[in-house]
C-alpha cells in the first residue's frame, strides 16, 4: 500500500519546475542587461536629423484654464521644430539593444511646470538619474508620468516653488501630462539603461561619444513623425557623420 502521498510528489515536481523557470528568467535578465566596462577603440557617432517635408505653422494651444497664471501670451504646439538647414529638433537618437560600453552618467534632471507648460518638452537621461519635478506656477499642477502600460508616478504640486525629487529606475519612453484641467500640457521623457542616446538640438545635430566598435541599429524617434533607423558599423577609433531624413 502506498502511504507516500501523491500530493507531496506533485508539490515537489511543481517546486522543481518553478525553480527552473526562475533560474532561466534570471539568466535571461543577466544576459540582456547592460554591463558597463572599459571601451577599447571607442568612436564618436555624430549626425544630423533633417525634415524635408513642408513645415506647417504650429497649432495654437487652447488655454482653457487659469489664464491669469498660465499667461495670456499665445502658446503653440512644440512637437515639430525645424531649424537651420532643415535640421529637426527633439528627435531621440539611441542605439538599440546595446549590452556593453562605457559607464552610465547620472546627472540631475529637472521638469518644471512653468506658465502651464512642461519645461523641457523633451528630455532623455539614464536610469538612476534623480528627477526634480518643480512647480513654478501658483496653481495646482500634477505631474503624471506614464509608461505605455503603467504609471511611473503622479505627484500633486499644490505650492508655488514646490519641488519633489524622484530617482528614476525604470527605462522606457514616458509620457507626461497634467490632469488638473491643463489638458494642453504635454512632455516626454526617454529613460535609458545605457549611455548611448542623445536628443537632436535646434539644428537637428546630435552626437554619441565613445561607442564601442561593432554593428548596431541606430534608432530615431520623434513624437509626431515616429521612428526611423539606420545600420551603424563602428570601426575602432573612426568617428563618423550620419544623416537621417524624415519626409
Amino acid at each position, binding site marked *: 500500500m502506498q502511504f507516500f502521498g501523491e500530493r507531496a510528489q506533485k508539490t515537489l515536481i511543481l517546486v522543481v519546475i518553478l525553480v527552473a523557470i526562475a533560474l532561466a528568467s534570471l539568466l535571461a535578465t543577466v544576459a540582456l542587461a547592460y554591463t558597463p566596462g572599459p571601451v577599447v577603440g571607442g568612436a564618436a557617432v555624430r549626425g544630423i536629423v533633417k525634415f524635408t517635408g513642408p513645415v506647417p505653422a504650429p497649432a495654437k494651444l487652447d488655454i482653457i484654464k487659469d489664464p491669469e497664471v498660465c499667461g495670456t501670451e499665445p502658446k503653440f504646439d512644440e512637437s515639430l521644430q525645424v531649424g537651420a538647414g532643415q535640421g529637426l529638433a527633439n528627435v531621440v537618437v539611441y542605439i538599440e539593444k546595446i549590452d556593453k560600453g562605457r559607464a552610465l552618467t547620472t546627472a540631475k534632471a529637472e521638469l518644471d511646470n512653468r506658465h502651464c507648460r512642461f519645461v523641457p518638452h523633451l528630455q532623455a537621461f539614464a536610469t538612476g538619474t534623480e528627477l526634480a519635478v518643480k512647480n513654478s506656477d501658483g496653481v495646482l499642477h500634477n505631474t503624471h508620468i506614464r509608461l505605455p*502600460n503603467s504609471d511611473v508616478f503622479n505627484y500633486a504640486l499644490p505650492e508655488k516653488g514646490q519641488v519633489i525629487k524622484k530617482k528614476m529606475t525604470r527605462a522606457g519612453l514616458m509620457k507626461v501630462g497634467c490632469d488638473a484641467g491643463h489638458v*494642453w500640457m504635454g512632455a516626454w521623457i526617454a529613460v535609458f539603461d545605457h549611455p548611448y542616446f542623445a536628443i537632436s538640438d535646434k539644428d537637428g545635430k546630435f552626437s554619441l561619444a565613445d561607442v564601442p566598435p561593432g554593428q548596431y541599429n541606430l534608432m530615431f*524617434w520623434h513624437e509626431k513623425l515616429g521612428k526611423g533607423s539606420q545600420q551603424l558599423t563602428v570601426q575602432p577609433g573612426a568617428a563618423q557623420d550620419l544623416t537621417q531624413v524624415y519626409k
Partner: protein
Amino acid sequence: MPPFLADEQRNYKIIFMILSVSLALAAVWAFFDEDVTRRPWKQWQRLYAQLLDHGADQVAVAQLVVPELQVVDRCTTCHAGIDNPAMVGGNHKVLQVHPQRDTLLKHHPSLQFGCTPCHRGQGLALTEGTAHGPGDPHWLEPLLRGPYVQASCLGCHAATEHLAGAEILAKGKQLFTELGCAGCHAIGPEAPPRRGPSLVHVAQKLLPGYMVTWIANPEKRRARYQMPQFWPKAATDPSEATRRDREVLAIAAYLLEKSEAWPMASAATAVAGERAALGKALFDQVGCRGCHALGGGRDTVRIAEPKAAGSGDAWADFGGNDAPGDASPVALAAAATIDFAPPLGEVASRLQPGFIANWLRDPSQYWREARMPTPRLVEGETLYIQSYLHSVATLPVPPTPAALATPRDPKLVEQGLKLITVYGCAGCHEIPGFATDARPGPDLADYGSKDPRDMLQPTPPPPRHQRTWERATEAKLLAPQALSAGTIKLVMPDYGLQPEQVQALAVFLRGLRSQTIPAAYRAEPAGGQARLQAENLIQERGCQQCHQLRGLNGAILRYYEQAHLAPPSLDVAGKRLQPQWMFSYLLEPAPVRPWLQVRMPQFRFTPAEAENVTAWLAENAGKAGGLRPMPIHAVSPQRAEMGAHLFERLKCVTCHRLVRGDGVETAQLAPDLGLARQRLDPAWVRNFIEDPGKVLPGTKMPQFFPDGQSPTPDVLGGNVAAQMELLVDYLMNLGLLPVGAEPPAPVRKGAP
C-alpha cells in the same frame, strides 16, 4: 407396502413426503446458490484485518442503522476501510478510503447518514451485484455512478451553487434555469419567470417575414438563453418541410392576430444620416457594448481620451520601452462574454422600424420581466441609436408572407392556437390567450426516481441490461426528436446541447425526487438565501459585463484604452462606498463622474434585491454590518476651519467640485466631494489620499504626500498622518458644517 402408507390418508402422506424432500433439496440448492460457503464479504474482511496487521477474529456483517432516514446499510461489511484515512492506494479498491473523506465524511458522518442516502443501491444486500443494483432486477434504485452521485446533494441542500464536490450538479441546475426548462416542466410549487420574451405585443416588434424563418430555424446567435429547434433542422423528407412551413405560418398568424396594442410614445422611424452618426457615438459609449455586439467583425471600437494638442501620437513606435510586465487592468482577460445579449448588427431585418426607440425608453413597458435594464437615455438619444442600428444592417428586409398580411384566415389562426398548445410555446413566452402559469410539459418533481422500463429508449433499443435511467435521459436530452418512433411523437425541442451539458442536466434531473427529508438534515446555503439571490442577480443582470468584479474584467473594458474612462471596479466600489449610498444608487443611479460617457443603467431592482446586492458587494469587499450607516467622526468648528484651510492650500477644488452653495466653480475633472459624507467610506478615503495610484490603478488623482512628505509643512507640524486624518474629517463633515456657521448636532457618534 409399508405400514405407515397403508391407511386412508396415504395419498396425503405421499404428497407430504415429496414436499419434504423438495424442501430439503431447495435448502441445499439455496445454500450453494447464495454462496454461503465462500461469502466474498468475509474475504474482504479477512484481507482488511491482514492489512491492518491484526487477527481475522472480528469477521462479521457490519451494519449502519439510521432510523431518521430509515436506512439499514451493510455496505461497510465489504467497504471496511471507507472511513480509514490510511487506506490510500493499494490494489483493492473495495477497501479504499472514501474519496475526499476529509470534506465529505466530515460533513456527513457515516453513523448519521449511512451510505445509500447518497449512493443509492440496496443497503441490506451483501453481494456486489445485488447491493449495487444490476444483479437484482427488482431493485429500482441502483448505485449512482460517477458524477451522478452528485444528484443526491439536491435532497438536503437547498442551494448547490457553492457546494464543493457538486460542481456538475450545480452546472446542471444552472442550465435548467437558463434554458428555461421550468417553463414547461414544474419541479416544485413555485413558478419561475419565463425565459423567452413576451409575445403579447409582438406585431409591433417583429417583422412577419422574420418571424417565420426564426420559428422554423432559430439561429444559434449566442451561447446562452437560446430558442430551441422544434422541427428537425435538416428536413430530409420534403413532406416534413412542407408540414413545418405550414405549422410555422399558422403559429405566426395566431401571434400576429392576437397581438395586443402597445402604446408607442414615438412613431419616428428615421434611419440614416447625421442621426446615425450620433447614434453610433452613443452606442459605442453609453454602455450598450457591455452586453451587445454588432457581430460580423464590426466590433473594433477604441474608446480613448481625446489627444491633447502637442502630445504627439507615436508613443508605441519607441523601441526602448520596458517589457510589458505590469499590464493595465484593461489588458486583463475579460471574464464576461461578449454575447451576453443578442447581437444587434442585423436588427433592421428583424425588428419593426420604430421598435428600438420605444423599447429603449423602458424595456419593462414592453415586457414586464425584461432582463435588459433601462438605459437612461433621453428621447432624442433613443432615436439616434435606433437610426444607427438600422443603418449598419447588411441583410435585406424579408418580405411579409401573403398569409400573414391582414386580413388573416381565421382557420389558419385557429390552427395556430392548437399548434402553440401542442408545442408549448407559452412555457417560455407570454402569449395572449394562454394562462400565465401554464406548464405544457410533464411534471418532473419525481423524475429522478423514474423506472427506466417506463422511459423511451433510443432506436434501435440498447440491450436490456443497458436500459438505464441515465442512458435514456442522456439520449433524450441530446436529441429529443430522435426518440420519436411510430405513434409516439415527442414535442420536446432540441436545445443543441453539448455532451457535457447533457450530462450535467441529467445529473440534476437524477436528483429530482419527491422525498421527505427530516428537518435536521436540510442544509441551508452559507450566507442564506439573500446571498444566493444577490449572486444570481449579479450574474443574470450582467454586472460583470461592465464592471471588474473579483479581479475579473467586464466585457466592455476591452474597448477602453484608459481605465478611468470605463465603468469602475465593483471590488473597489465595495470598499470605497458606504453601503447605504450603494443601495440608493442601485435603485436610482445618479451620475457622480460627469465626464464619463458610459452610464449606469437603471436595473429596476426591488428594494429587497438592491439590499441583497449591496450587502453582497460590501461583504465581497470585506465589510460587515450590512446597510447600517457608517459612523461619522464629528468635528469641532475649529477643526473644520483648519480642514478648510488645508483643503484650500492643497487646491483640491482645482478638480473636485463642492456643492456647498457657496459658488465654488464646478469642475468636470473629479467627483463631487459634496457627496463624500453620504457616499464614501472614510477609511477608504484615507488610503486613497495616501497613494491614489495604488488603490485605484489608472486614476488621475495625484499623490499629495509622496515619500511621507507634505507640501504644506506649516500645517499640523507637517505631520502627514495628521494632515490626512484632518482632510478625511473635513470631507466627511462637508455639507454638515457650512463655513462660518454654527456646527449642527453630529449625525451619529462613532469611533474616531
